[in-house]
């Protein structure tokens, strides 16, 4: 069992938890993920590691409540335990040798972008962060991220905080203004990553994306997380989750990620009606 040591709401829908998992904390690197299961009846769900405290032996996970599992996870409080917490999985983000990087985070994707930005910042790279949100009330991690970059650009779709526009708008501006990045690292909704790649491509800036296909085991066994990279089949859990953005078939990924939408919607209703989120109590 893996204890939730602390729990902090970042906005109305996004929450940060620190989970006691010393073995994972010891090994975790930016870009890697864990698989957790809330209880015996839960799914195995991947979450990217948002940070870790090696001394305390805790691993940070940031989740947004979107479906049954995250609703279930959200019913757990400090002191409660997760049934399973395995990792760190996947390959760490390759940051060696990068000196000037634009890190783009979209929505809750900022939680995943943060450890990458931090790792880059820690190795002395110059980092620009572009963080995009729909609106002011869901902005997360602003303070933390400001502390790990040279320039922090906050974008909102409705202009209620930071600048009005998408992350692509800002990246376009910066590139047009002559900013020279060794690499753009984009993490967020698949559709955002697709357009970040389209924005960076004319400027020939290498662009790395972190993919989030549906997974089950997460250890290179089930083949569910296959993605097309340059037309070749790759598995995000062992070959990724980071891939060269220019090579990714984003439309295929968007389609594949929608496969269980209907059942998940049904699942949400199911849990609410039955036990209000606490089952087998």
């Amino acid at each position, binding site marked *: 069992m893996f204890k939730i040591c602390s729990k902090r709401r970042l906005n109305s829908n996004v929450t940060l938890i620190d989970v006691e998992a010393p*073995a*994972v904390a010891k*090994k975790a690197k930016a870009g890697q993920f864990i698989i957790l*299961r809330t209880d015996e*009846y*839960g*799914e*195995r769900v991947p979450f990217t590691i948002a940070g870790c405290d090696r001394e305390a032996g805790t691993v940070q996970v940031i989740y947004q409540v979107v479906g*049954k*599992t995250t609703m*279930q996870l959200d019913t757990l409080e400090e002191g409660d335990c997760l*049934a*399973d*917490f*395995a*990792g*760190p*999985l996947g390959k760490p983000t390759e940051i060696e040798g990068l000196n000037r990087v634009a890190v783009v985070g979209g929505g809750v994707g900022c939680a995943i972008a943060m450890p990458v930005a931090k790792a880059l910042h820690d190795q002395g790279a110059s980092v620009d962060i572009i963080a995009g949100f729909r609106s002011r009330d869901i902005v997360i991690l602003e303070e933390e991220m400001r502390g790990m970059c040279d320039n922090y650009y906050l974008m909102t779709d409705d202009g209620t905080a930071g600048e009005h526009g998408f992350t692509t708008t800002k990246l376009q501006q910066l590139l047009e203004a002559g900013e020279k990045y060794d690499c753009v690292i984009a993490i967020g909704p698949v559709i955002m990553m697709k357009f970040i790649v389209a924005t960076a491509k004319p400027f020939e800036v290498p662009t790395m994306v972190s993919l989030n296909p549906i997974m*089950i*085991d997460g*250890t*290179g*066994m*089930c*083949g*569910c997380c*296959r993605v*097309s990279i340059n037309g070749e*089949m790759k*598995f995000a859990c*062992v070959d990724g989750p980071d891939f060269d953005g220019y090579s990714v*078939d984003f439309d*295929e990924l968007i*389609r*594949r990620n*929608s*496969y*269980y939408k209907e*059942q*998940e919607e049904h*699942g949400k209703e199911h849990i609410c009606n039955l036990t209000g989120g606490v089952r087998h109590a």
Partner: protein
Amino acid sequence: MPNMSPTKVAMPEQDPKVRAKNFDEVACGYTAEMAQEEATRCLNCKKPVCIDGCPVLVHIPDFIQKIVEGEFEQAYEIIASTNSLPAVCGRVCPQETQCEAKCIRGLRSEPVAIGRLERFVADWHIEHSEKREIEIIPNGHKVAIVGSGPAGLTCAGDLAMAGCDVTVFEAFHECGGVLVYGIPEFRLPKAIVKREVEGLEDLGVKFRKDVVIGRTMTIDELFEEGYEAIFVGSGAGLPMFMGIEGESLLGVYSANEYLTRINLMKAFRDDYDTPAPRNRCVAVIGGGNVAMDAARSALRMGADKVMIVYRRSMEELPARAEEVQHAIEEGVEFNLLRNPVKILSDENGYVCGMECIKMELGEPDASGRRRPVPIEGSEFTMECDAVIMALGTRANPIIGQTTEGLDLNKWNCIVADEETAATTREGVYAGGDAVTGAATVILAMGAGKQAADSMLKYMGVE
């Protein structure tokens, strides 16, 4: 005078029409009377060749004689002395190509039903006996087992019996490897696997779940923690696909994914959260045991029509005869000498059919089986809304990628000596699908057993 009946005592089974809609075990098992009747068919040969057919060398005639005498617990002790997972093997071993293939009775009639008798004895033991009290003298040696599948469990059992301090590291949340994620409940109830694992715990074996060796800890770190010898039985890895158009469409699964959802994640039960595959018309590509498991699971998940699509003919099907027979009885259709060329998509990216080509058998290939050759111009389409690829697997890449000095072959399988299970890294032994690629439970167990022997020699234990 032995019982000279030419046929095995029939195995009671659930009615095919009923069982095709549930996940309860298909074969119900012999009663004591049936087992004793079947046991009297054994000639108790002076030179029992059946044993040569068993990768873990079960003393077959000895345990069968104990059944005749009604000494079922003694029969169990005989089996358990060389086989750590009798209740599993009695259910899933391909006896018809192993022990039963060698049985003298098989020359003129049906061989003795060794597998069914083994299962009877194991189940009798589970039902009737107390916890086994075995005195083990600790030998002070600490060993690690990577993976709790059939190879790892067997290796762990033998090393624990020899007195080693054994820890098994399992990546998943449940122990058993392919026995829990791959083989379906209706063929091998998970409660049985759990009992076998508990049996090893009784011997002092420790299990650490949610530990992915190669990620959470490396092989080198295990040595640093004081493990003297390590057995890697990390199992099969990434599934193979055909490389044809349409394999990323919605409704295309690897058999690993399909079976893992249903077996490990229990998607067939309403009280578990993992979404279940719900398809109407399912095509399963392949002809092995995994293909049969996937096809029969698809029926039970509510599909109206399930088809096996295999590029050779009935005779070359690699699946166990019994599994094929069961699949036919339950209503699985066999489309033989057919090979998919392309998976077809509807306007939303869902599978709506498959283009196939007819095949004919040519000259025998390297495997000795006649090679299937496409018949030019024979393409046709079949309708389906799901395609399950059951074509075998490659090795799991994680340990290979993270362990210095561990050689892999061109399929990324770990290179291990066939006799000793030794890898190219000192103190590291390997066996099962991680070495051979997709094979059977009993072969993995045989490798686990060999490895245990070698590890004891390596550590200087007599």
